[in-house]
């Protein structure tokens, strides 16, 4: 039962690869966006806020189709990318990572922003009275103190990427070895009548990966909590 076929092994590695790169895109952009929304005031802020949240409220297929129009070989950005850098994202694993990143982005931004919004802003002011510039304050105070939110956001984004289906299949299709992640492979297997073992195997892998991610996040969260010294806060 547990002799995995090439398709399944490929799907497993591809899923991890796509999720990893999706988080890698989401994390820096998400933190910057969250900081912008939480700390800065500028005209058109509502528009940025809306754009960030769009993937959360739109059907994933719509997001996938929009990506295709934008980043496809003949799309506005896609043709430019192809002509200038010879990069193709549509129907490749890179495209799958982008689709996942777009879908996960609002989750990342929301988690980090919540952390930034609830943080004691007075600490940032205090740091500046001690001679720290805005950049130093961000790196040494704001960022470390929003670590719990960043961690939550990363886990949410990673989980979202593991399960991304609609936007991915619309944007980059379902190509074994290139864009066929576990959910897409599982979908394929369920469409074929007969032996359900491959589907059950993928299901098991999914559950194991998800559990591993949860446990890792829990361990990390504990570590961060200890570092922030919040363990004793409840006693006071």
């Amino acid at each position: 039962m547990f002799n995995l076929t090439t398709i399944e092994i490929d799907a497993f590695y591809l899923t991890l690869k796509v999720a990893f790169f999706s988080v890698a895109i989401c994390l820096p952009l998400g933190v910057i966006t969250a900081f912008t929304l939480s700390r800065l005031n500028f005209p058109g802020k509502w528009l940025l806020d809306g754009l960030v949240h769009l993937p959360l409220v739109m059907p994933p297929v719509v997001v996938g189709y929009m990506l295709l129009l934008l980043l496809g070989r003949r799309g506005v950005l896609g043709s430019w990318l192809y002509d200038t850098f010879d990069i193709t994202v549509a129907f490749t694993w890179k495209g799958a990572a982008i689709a996942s990143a777009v879908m996960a982005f609002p989750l990342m931004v929301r988690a980090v922003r919540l952390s930034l919004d609830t943080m004691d802003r007075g600490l940032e002011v205090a740091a500046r009275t001690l001679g720290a510039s805005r950049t130093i304050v961000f790196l040494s105070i704001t960022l470390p103190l929003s670590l719990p939110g960043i961690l939550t956001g990363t886990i949410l984004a990673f989980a979202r990427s593991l399960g991304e289906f609609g936007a991915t299949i619309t944007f980059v299709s379902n190509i074994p070895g290139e864009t066929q992640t576990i959910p897409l492979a599982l979908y394929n297997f369920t469409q074929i009548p007969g032996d359900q073992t491959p589907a059950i195997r993928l299901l098991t892998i999914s559950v194991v990966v998800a559990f591993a991610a949860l446990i890792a996040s829990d361990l990390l969260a504990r570590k961060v909590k200890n570092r922030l010294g919040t363990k004793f806060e409840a006693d006071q």
Partner: protein
Amino acid sequence: MISAEFVVERDDFLMDIKLEIPSTGATVLFGPSGSGKTTFINVLSGIIKPMSGLIKVGNATFFDSENKINLPIEKRGIGYVFQDGRLFPHMSVEENLDFGRKRSNDKTSRKKEIIELLGLGQLLQRKPSTLSGGERQRTAIGRAILSGPSFLFMDEPLAALDFARKQEILPYIATLKKNLKIPIIYVSHQMEEVVRLADHLVLLENGKILDHGQIFDIINSPSLGILLGKDDKTSLINCHVDKESGKDGLSKLVFPGGYFLVNQKNLASLENVRIELKAQDVALALEKPVATSIANILGASVAKIETSKDTHCDVLLSVGNVSIWARITQQSASKLGLKIGSHVFALIKSAAIRPF
């Protein structure tokens, strides 16, 4: 010297300030809650941007609305002790202390001195969440000082502490003031802190400066009486502690004009103290009483008599070149036949003298 002239908008009033603050000793901003004290130091430190004005500290221009200068907080070289401490929770006490020190020009050996002065030696590895309120505030004070400020702002640093903790920290601040020679601007609405720390006093109410000047002048200002809701007179006298103090249980506090005997042993370790003497605790006699329990009998001359609408009057006495207020009834005053220039004896019980 800080010279500040600015207009800043608050929810409830417009604050229009024009003030010069000397760069020596402690200046206490005193006033009821919501009078604009914190706003004042937040403007000076750059946390709040005023609508217009000119703020200069020494040779540096912090803010100049005409020439569009607004020096960022971190470039103003000030230390700020916040009411709530604001220690960085993810750093140890030592890392907190080092945060400002790393960025100051003065990286010399002051750290050791400050740690000892504030009694932080045992706390260095602890996280702020494990500290008591008093320990946190001491750390916050140390952190601000170690950033090498040219001015130290303290925003009611004791307000969040209970009585015992206040008594724990006040001496530290008094020692700091004496040893470090950093000018301090201290926000307070506690008379005790004023009496103990202030060299200069600024009285604020509803964003307006009611009065300001040397503590010895302002302590009996009518504005302060109105703020405190009473018309007491208080004398503040700087004294030198005599070395022989404490041997017989009494301390001898010498001032230009005489000395006080105070029923406190623990003053011997101090060099100088300031005493507070309320006018109603000073009695007057024309002749020197011989058999009396009163320990302090000072020869004085009457400099001023203020008759109140009430039944009492306040008599300003010159003892040497020190002024002491006495409050007696108008009936007593006429019985004694007090006039300006009269020679009297001021009688003060030891217990009435509050040394700080």
